[in-house]
């Protein structure tokens, strides 16, 4: 019946520290809320149409949520940048910015293993791989553009100093109409990103069996002993 007993030792690796996990989920929540409310602001649906104006304020609330979460996502991100300097090695800023040859090699290796799949079995990488790092780095820039366009739009309806710091972007984009247009288009980048991100988490979990999905909840990943040694 059974062949020889084979033991494969695994180790728990504490990858995502609590602040990183909190950042991740706050960010995820903000992105979802911002996408939904933002889409509604662009395309309000004819709901509650039977009421009179004095009975409701739903569109106002949708906008309120959008503005609130824009602050949350921004300052959450500011915190994450800080954590990129004080956090553990998996959270460090240099995991997002390829600046060493070995990182470029990792990048190419990931592309070979996971994208074009000329390689079946890739080297084990703890934390996120370099391709993921680079795509987050791109995401950060789109996020920056989204922040600029969003607060630039917001600046005309706010008396607070903060959104006004972004008012310069309006003439740069050629008026509010274009700022709005780009803000809307960038939203789709986040939609696409989210789809790919979730898929790849499932993909890695399925092929590698290291607990990728749960790692962002508990913080732990599971690595084979020999993978750790052969790094």
């Amino acid at each position, binding site marked *: *019946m*059974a*062949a*020889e*007993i*084979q033991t*494969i030792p695994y180790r728990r690796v504490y990858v995502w520290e609590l602040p990183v996990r909190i950042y991740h989920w706050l960010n995820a929540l903000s992105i979802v809320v911002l996408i939904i409310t933002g889409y509604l602001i*662009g*395309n*309000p649906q*004819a*709901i*509650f*149409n039977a*009421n*009179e*104006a*004095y*009975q*409701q*304020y*739903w*569109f*106002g609330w*949708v*906008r309120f949520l959008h503005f609130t979460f824009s602050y949350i996502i921004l300052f959450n991100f500011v915190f994450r940048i800080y954590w990129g300097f004080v956090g553990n090695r998996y959270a460090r800023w240099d995991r997002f910015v390829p600046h060493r040859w070995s990182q470029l090699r990792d990048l190419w290796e990931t592309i070979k293993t996971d*994208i074009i*799949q000329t390689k*079946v*079995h890739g080297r084990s990488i703890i934390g996120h791989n370099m391709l993921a790092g680079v795509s987050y780095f791109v995401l950060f820039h789109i996020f920056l553009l989204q922040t600029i366009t969003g607060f630039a739009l917001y600046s*005309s*309806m706010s008396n607070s100093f903060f959104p006004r710091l972004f*008012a*310069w972007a*309006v*003439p740069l984009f*050629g*008026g*509010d*109409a*274009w700022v*709005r*247009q*780009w803000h*809307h*288009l960038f*939203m*789709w980048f986040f*939609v*696409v990103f989210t*789809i*790919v991100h979730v*898929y790849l988490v499932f*993909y890695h979990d399925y*092929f590698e*069996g290291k607990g990728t999905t749960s790692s962002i909840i508990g913080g732990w990943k599971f690595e084979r002993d020999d993978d750790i040694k052969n790094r």
Partner: protein
Amino acid sequence: MEKNIPTIRQAMEAKGYSRRDFLLFCGLATAAAGLELSGLAQVVQAFETKARPPVVWLHFQECTCCSESFIRSTHPIVADIIFDTLSLDYTETLLAAAGAQAEKCRDDTIKNNQGKYILLVEGSIPLGNEGYCMIGGKSAEQILKEAAAGAAAVIAWGSCASTGCVQAASPNPTTATPIKKIINKPVINVPGCPPIAEVMTGIVTHILLFGKMPELDSQGRPKEFYSRRVHDTCYRRPYYDAGLFVEAWDDEAARKGYCLYKMGCKGPTTYNACSVTKWNGNLSYPIQSGHGCIGCSEAGFWDNGPFYQHLGAFPGFGIESTADTIGVTAAAVTAGGIALHALTSNLRKRKLIEKNKEESVVVAPISEETDKKEVVETEKGGDEDGKSSS
């Protein structure tokens, strides 16, 4: 050499206005310039002592709707600033002189009032070809530059002079250029197609009164009239916040006067005073008469997308594609790519999957006998279905 320029009061008296008329004019000017009533004395004093400034009004590529709007200013005395009180020394549309005489009229005004005259420009400058808009053998650019050199203040009337308007709409065949890009002097941009008459008179009054330019925003527009969006003071705004929108031009919501946002109203992206000052003597404005704002005072409004649709077309993606079309396409392509990737991954990595399964251990259920003893068995190719190969 130059006749003594009368003060504004003297000029009005010469036209037969009484002191009462003069004071009424001062009151209106005070309001137009956005001063408090306590500023009235200051205004009266200014108009009694200040010489009326000469004005040169140039027309380039435009439709004269700015002039039309201006002469319909509802405060007739304020409108008279230009036609009676100011000395309108040169304007093609209303000029009595013709030909060389008219040219001389302009040149004299410029020469004799260096640093004193106000230059009002209507229309954009066709840089594409000198021949377009050429007057008396001088290109539009040349005329503008000559006139601007000695002007005390330069005002760009309307969207043509401020941002290029319809002539500058893609593909801009004449290379229509707003005047601020041609002269290197501060320009007061007064966009709108046309601008509101009261806004125009308000700005001229401001210059008359204070002898300097009103406060401008980053796009050169006077803050007092262009710092808020049409949307911010729109009387339909409560419907917007309540989420009550017109869905079709003839639906019940349209009859009830709900917000026109979904009909493409550009109020939320347009900076102008329409919903406060309104038009035709405070009578109405586009939204009040049931039509959305088309954003005529915004830069490049002809190319900012369809008037009846909220999101504009994206350049390079065809006329009908909005950000949403692009986004949905991208999302669909991504989903397709993912499906393909999942499929090929399973095929290409089937060995890996098998290997992983081989490594899987079957943990036997804990029975009473083996309570303390760990029983671990490895089954080749085993999975929970028990499709064991051995």
